[in-house]
């Protein structure tokens, strides 16, 4: 499945400072769909190059990270259970505190 993944608010530093990743992610063996829980594992294995604890805590993202699926907070689409579709855009953004 073709997806666009974007990192911002400093999270891009965890993946070689690259903000936009066009990737192809396969569905888990035997599964009929790809959900956000699967994608997080995939990102952690394939894109995060350092300090994975700055991206994930337990089986979800760490506190202070907003996840947006097609410009919409993943809380509104089922969080880890959100089903992904072909060409979806998933944004991971760390909240900023500076001013």
């Amino acid at each position, binding site marked *: 499945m073709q997806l666009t993944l974007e990192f*911002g*608010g*400093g999270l891009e530093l965890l993946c070689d400072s690259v*903000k936009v990743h066009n990737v192809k992610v396969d569905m888990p063996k035997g599964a009929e769909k790809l959900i956000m829980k699967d994608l997080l594992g995939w990102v952690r294995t394939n894109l995060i190059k350092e*300090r994975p*604890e*700055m991206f994930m805590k337990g089986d979800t993202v*760490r*506190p*202070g*990270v*907003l996840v*947006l699926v097609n*410009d*919409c*907070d993943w*809380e*509104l689409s089922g969080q880890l259970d959100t089903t992904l579709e072909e060409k979806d855009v998933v*944004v991971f*953004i*760390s*909240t*900023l*505190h*500076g*001013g």
Partner: protein
Amino acid sequence: MEPNGHDEASRILHELQSLKATKSDIDRRISALESQLRHLNLQNGTVPNPITAAHHDLTPEMIHRYSRHLLLPSFGVKAQSNLINSSILVVGAGGLGSPALLYLAACGAGRLGIVDHDVVELNNMHRQVIHTEVFIGQPKVKSAATTCRSINSSVQIVEHHEALRTSNALEIFNQYDVIVDATDNAPSRYMISDCCVLLGKPLVSGAALGLEGQLTVYNYNGGPCYRCLFPTPPPTAACQRCADSGVLGVVPGIIGCLQALEAIKIASAVGEPLSGRMLLFDALAARIRIVKIRGRSPQCEACGENATFTQQQFREFDYEKFTQSPLTPSPLKLELLQSDSRISSKEYHDRVANGEAHVLVDVRPAHHFKIVSLPKSLNIPLPSLEARLPEISSALKEEEERNGSSSAKLYVICRRGNDSQRAVQNLHKLGFTSARDIVGGLESWAHDVDSNFPTY
């Protein structure tokens, strides 16, 4: 005898300083008198005039000043009157607060409060555009208030020259209709949001760092509060500061202007404030994305259905402990090493002057090293220290050969003296047992040895 050039320079500097202080004092007196005069004129101007009687309370001077607002069909007299009767509080007169305050003063908000405890510094001025050079060293609140009054003397400017704390936040917020969060740290953001929830005040929240900015309106029209979105604070390692990571000046400028816009919309009751949505600004990519965020969370500890958070609990809540970071961030000062593994910058200076055989390793990131460095220092950024040990070994050997000594010393320096301690700890473990760090880093060099050495 020729006058000593150094004495002459310091006399001029001294005179400049005293003239600048006198000038800023005169400026202040002028703006206070102007404001007084304007106030008297306004009082006289409010006598009803049967010929120009209209269905609003705008004075002739206001009509002239805000005419371009009044000409907007979607804004007009009604919204401007709302604005003039509103009060807005801006917490923080820094990178975000500066442009926000400029526009809020200019647009005619009735009462404008400013909270800040800090003083103006030279390294603020690239982004904190409300402050001018004469105010360096003076309170930001005073500087910002002076500029606001000089833009619009009909606005009542209130100076809260204090750090926002749980002990004063409720009393201060109570005096305003709209709160603008222009602070720069996590504990302040939680504290401000909780206080707004307790008092039912809309909160315009902005943040900027590096080349990115974020903006949303909390606690408004059924929208979420800060805790609905971030119930658990982030790890402290995820809270970068402009003083460490840098920020392009215009980026908080843009977010601060947008904060002024949202505050104006709420105060004047026009348009659709950015509630339940968040604006994400990426300056490098030239992209603004507006995303839909969750609504008020029923489980939220501050604003949820069963929330029991009271004003008394707020007063006693320890936001620094909750977020594991200080409300008024100051540079970290680690003490990792025994004193015999450290030397002062002065002592290092003396040893160099005595021709001691040594190697100085600077463990700052390469882009810091490019700003300024000590002569003959070897830049090996901390993360690559272990991989580049051979370079240190060969530098020591070379120095011994050059100097004809049997053992060259190894010193480590960084910006403020924290990373240098971490590096020396590692070096000790890796066999360089005599490595020592320079206490206080390059900042102490500038402070104690060479006052012309640039700090950043």
